[in-house]
């Protein structure tokens, strides 16, 4: 490890890896520091991503794709299933990844492009000079070192601390943290090419429960519930165990995963002097789906691109780095987050009866494009009242 880099990247997930790869390809020196001892582990993810979203960043490879998805289904609180199919029959609409291998692949690509990588290395504090972020104090097996950088990229995930140490409030509101648990279950009867989402206040209050196939008779079976609804005796694990006992009593768990997913609005500002915040640390998870892989890679790439421009011009001030903040907010990703936050706020307030009625209205939907956006649009067509209830938002959905 060197004592100075153009970019010091805190966190070796998809945001950090794509930032490092992008930086290295632009000829910048960069280093990823990952506090865990292995890239990709432990997994904190349901591992789903859309086909187009994935291919924008990396060519799909069977080494880290667990299963290909061709459809999805939504199950109403009363058990009614609504099937979502692609207008193009047999079309691959998405993938369930093997994040342990996927994350390694992305970091390997960053390393191959020229970035340095350090594992079991923790950024313990920022190096600050007159309020400007200049690097980080790193700890590795008891050894403390000071590494400076032109720009630090905080890609340290949901449990992000780096931005907070730099004076930015990253607190997620309790009602907007999804408290999550997941098993990788095997030896279960499932459709290996369709995801299933279960809704309802009995199943997953203000969240959802999912089955994401992982190949053959295995799947990620997980749940996220609002932090507001969590408490002693009614936690995410209690809800999930009850569901599994009922639905897959003979399923065998081969992995147990825990995690938190933010479904709040992104941080008010995602840059500071010498600092750019990306991915889950910036709270850019899609608030409706809880999906964060694409948004992490998108913000990671943009962070490195903007940082490269700023470094070339010798101005790494907050003002100069604001280009990053403005660009992602104005992007399709940024607009989707804002829109889906409003939809989420509407959906979490729906009663089970109302959810049942909406799902009954359409047993089968053939979607032209596989996204929550087209799903909501199609649901509005068969539920004209939704247009009124969604108010001003509905206009932007048409």
């Amino acid at each position, binding site marked *: 490890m060197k004592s100075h880099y153009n970019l010091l990247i805190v966190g070796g997930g998809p945001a950090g890896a794509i930032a490092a790869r992008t930086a290295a390809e632009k000829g910048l020196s960069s280093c990823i520091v990952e506090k865990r001892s292995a890239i990709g582990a432990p997994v904190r993810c349901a591992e789903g991503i859309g086909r187009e979203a994935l291919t924008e960043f990396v060519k799909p490879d069977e080494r880290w794709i667990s299963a290909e998805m061709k459809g999805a289904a939504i199950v109403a609180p009363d058990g009614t299933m609504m099937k979502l199919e692609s207008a193009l029959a047999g079309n691959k609409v998405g993938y369930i990844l093997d994040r342990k291998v996927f994350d390694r692949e992305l970091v390997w690509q960053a390393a191959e492009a020229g970035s340095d990588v350090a594992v079991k290395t923790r950024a313990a504090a920022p190096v600050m000079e007159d309020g400007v972020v200049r690097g980080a104090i790193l700890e590795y097996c008891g050894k403390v070192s000071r590494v400076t950088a032109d720009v630090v990229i905080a890609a340290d995930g949901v*449990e992000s601390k780096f931005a907070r140490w730099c004076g930015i409030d990253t607190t997620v509101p*309790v009602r907007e943290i999804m408290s999550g648990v997941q098993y990788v279950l095997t030896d279960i009867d499932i459709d290996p090419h369709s995801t299933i989402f279960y809704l309802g206040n009995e199943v997953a209050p203000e969240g959802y429960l999912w089955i994401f196939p992982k190949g053959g008779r295995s799947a990620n079976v997980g749940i996220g519930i609002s932090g507001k609804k*969590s408490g002693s005796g009614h936690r995410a*694990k209690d809800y999930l165990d009850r569901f599994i006992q009922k639905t897959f009593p003979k399923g065998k768990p081969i992995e*147990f*995963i*825990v995690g938190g997913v933010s479904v709040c609005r992104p941080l008010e500002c995602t840059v500071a002097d010498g600092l750019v915040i990306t991915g889950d640390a910036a709270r850019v998870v899609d608030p409706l789906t809880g999906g964060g892989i694409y948004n992490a890679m998108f913000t990671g790439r943009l962070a490195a691109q903007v940082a490269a421009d700023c470094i070339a011009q010798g101005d790494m001030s907050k003002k100069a780095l604001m280009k990053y903040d403005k660009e992602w907010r104005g992007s399709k990703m940024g607009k989707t987050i804002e829109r889906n936050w409003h939809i989420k706020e509407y959906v979490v307030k729906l009663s089970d009866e109302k959810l049942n009625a909406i799902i009954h209205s359409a047993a089968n939907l053939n979607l032209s494009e596989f996204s929550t956006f087209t799903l909501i649009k199609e649901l509005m067509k068969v539920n004209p009242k939704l247009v009124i209830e969604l108010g001003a938002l509905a206009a932007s959905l048409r």
Partner: protein
Amino acid sequence: MLNVHRDICGYCGCCVSVCPEGALELIDAYLRVEENCTSCGVCAKVCPLGALELVDEKPL
């Protein structure tokens, strides 16, 4: 004070994200509680596993 049941904790960081004081830090597989913890209990509420517990007195 906040008691971490380390045998239950899944080291996921869910609690860290909601702490209004920034008093929690997940260091690999170790959840650290800083002295500025106000025992507000938000972390204990959201924990997916119930690994955090507010206790009245300091443990022996």
